[in-house]
């Protein structure tokens, strides 16, 4: 079972990716749509495929994967199963960057100003984090500084909302912050993908150091690993990948927390083995949630961040209760 976890999850992601391409309010034959799109056609089916379904499925795949991956890496770095990407203030800062883009009117002038603002917010947060905490900061210092930066960004976001002169803009910002993959274009994908890819590589490269950290920081260092370097890979990787994810999709909670937790037994508790599993698991969870919001039929669809929390919280609670029983 454990040996097959990775290929099985990959198959599941593939199936959900196909489902994400096929499900939507308009009945479109995917076979014809793809054929027409590849032939550079501009039939309705091809347009729906290229401008609605494909970006949405690609973002579900990417955003879910980096949320799961960074959650697993942060849990390994902090050796705490409750760690999640929001902890280092990156999500809140990315949201602030996007809100500033909204607020300043830039978002109306240029459609990509919103995600670009989000990415700028995330990068500013991580630069500030290292400027404040220093280059050889302990993991604890980084987390405390990250929490402070996150709180500050959250407060500034609330300030911007409460000062908003226009109630429509306010509604738009609040809805955006709830998280969604709807109405994104391939330009969004192209903007976020490089950051997500570099972030994911940084996160995956920390696997061995995270394994060594199982035995504590001193022992990990005695095994030849630099804790500062491992911390930088995880934190900068999370900032790039999750910052880009939040910038294009809004804040989507719970994925980075529950997916690693759920898959840890399949990785036999090894942090390095958990990383690729959590990436696939996050992608599967996100694609499934995004398909489910579309099954509700036409009209205002549920926000993805709401659905992941609605599905995630009770599930997580059940998991906690079960472990409590097995420990007691």
């Amino acid at each position, binding site marked *: 079972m454990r040996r097959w976890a990775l290929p099985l999850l990959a198959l599941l992601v593939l199936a959900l990716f196909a489902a994400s391409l096929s499900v939507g309010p308009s009945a479109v034959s995917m076979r014809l749509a793809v054929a027409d799109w590849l032939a550079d056609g501009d039939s309705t089916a091809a347009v729906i495929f290229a401008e609605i379904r494909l970006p949405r499925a690609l973002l579900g795949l990417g955003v879910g994967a980096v949320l799961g991956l960074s959650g697993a890496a942060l849990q390994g770095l902090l050796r705490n199963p409750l760690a999640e990407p929001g902890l280092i203030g990156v999500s809140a800062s990315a949201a602030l960057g996007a809100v500033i883009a909204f607020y300043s009117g830039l978002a109306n002038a240029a459609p990509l100003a919103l995600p670009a603002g989000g990415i700028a917010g995330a990068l500013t947060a991580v630069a500030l984090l290292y400027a404040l905490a220093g280059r050889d900061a302990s993991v604890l210092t980084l987390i405390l500084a990250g929490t402070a930066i996150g709180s500050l960004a959250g407060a500034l976001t609330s300030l911007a909302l409460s000062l908003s002169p226009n109630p429509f803009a306010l509604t738009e910002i609040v809805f955006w912050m709830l998280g969604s993959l709807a109405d994104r274009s391939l330009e969004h994908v192209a903007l976020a993908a490089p950051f997500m890819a570099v972030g994911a590589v940084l996160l995956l490269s920390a696997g*061995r150091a995270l394994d060594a950290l*199982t*035995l504590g920081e001193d*022992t990990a*260092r*005695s095994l*030849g*690993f*630099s804790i500062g370097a491992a911390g930088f890979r995880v934190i900068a990787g999370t900032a790039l990948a999750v910052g880009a994810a939040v910038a294009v999709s809004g804040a989507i909670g719970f994925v980075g927390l529950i997916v690693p937790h759920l898959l840890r037994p399949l990785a*036999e508790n090894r942090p390095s083995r958990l990383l690729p599993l959590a990436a696939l698991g996050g992608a599967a969870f996100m694609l499934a949630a995004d398909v489910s919001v579309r099954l509700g039929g036409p009209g205002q669809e549920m926000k993805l961040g709401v659905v992941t929390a609605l599905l995630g919280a009770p599930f997580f609670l059940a998991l906690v209760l079960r472990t409590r029983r097995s420990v007691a």
Partner: protein
Amino acid sequence: MSVLEGAGLHLSYGAVPVLDGASLRLGAGELVGLIGPNGAGKSTLMRVLAGLARPSQGAVSLDGKPLAALPGRARARALAYMAQGRELHWPLTVERLVALGRLPHLGPFQRPGAEDEAAVARALERCDAAHLRGRTATTLSGGERARVLLARALASEPALLLADEPVAGLDPYHQLQVMEVLREGALAGTGILVVLHDLVLAARFCTRLALVHRGRVVADGPPAAVLEPGLLEQVYGVRMAAAEVAGERVHLPWSRI
């Protein structure tokens, strides 16, 4: 054949000097006991010798080359360190845990090979823990966990091993067992430095003792020379009782001064 040498080591935590000119040498095949009262600087001296803490003055060298200049992985292959705390953050199986000792021998994405598996099996065997290999390490008893963590340190098959209180909290049977593993390691050529509080174990198993007091090594030599009642009373603040057991002279702490 490796030699680890620290000379004139100074280190302070804030204004409090912890090491104040400590010097120590560890050669191949030696089993050196690091003894001294709590707070004397034993663990700090060991961490400095392991390259985990940087001295403010003085230098540590491995085979004549500065330890600090050595890349982390090369240092980790030559020198293993067993921490005092027995932290274990994830419930790994014993086999996976001991295999972490092979990390310094693996390239970034290289999988462990037959040689690594053999080293893990040897380490488990030496520590009498082979039967535990499938167990979850967090469910082990204190004695089992100490043996498994020692196996983790031995799995890298280092030239030098620094172990901080490996017998703390163990019952007499397991204390003797761990000391025997260390003695066998030294006989096989490994240079071993071990922090101990039990002076009887120190006298019986170590080839040399180093007595640490207020950040300095105040005595360094064969156990019989270092375990001198007058010196021990001055350093530990306890009166010692000497006894003859099975032809060996042992010193026991008897009453506070």
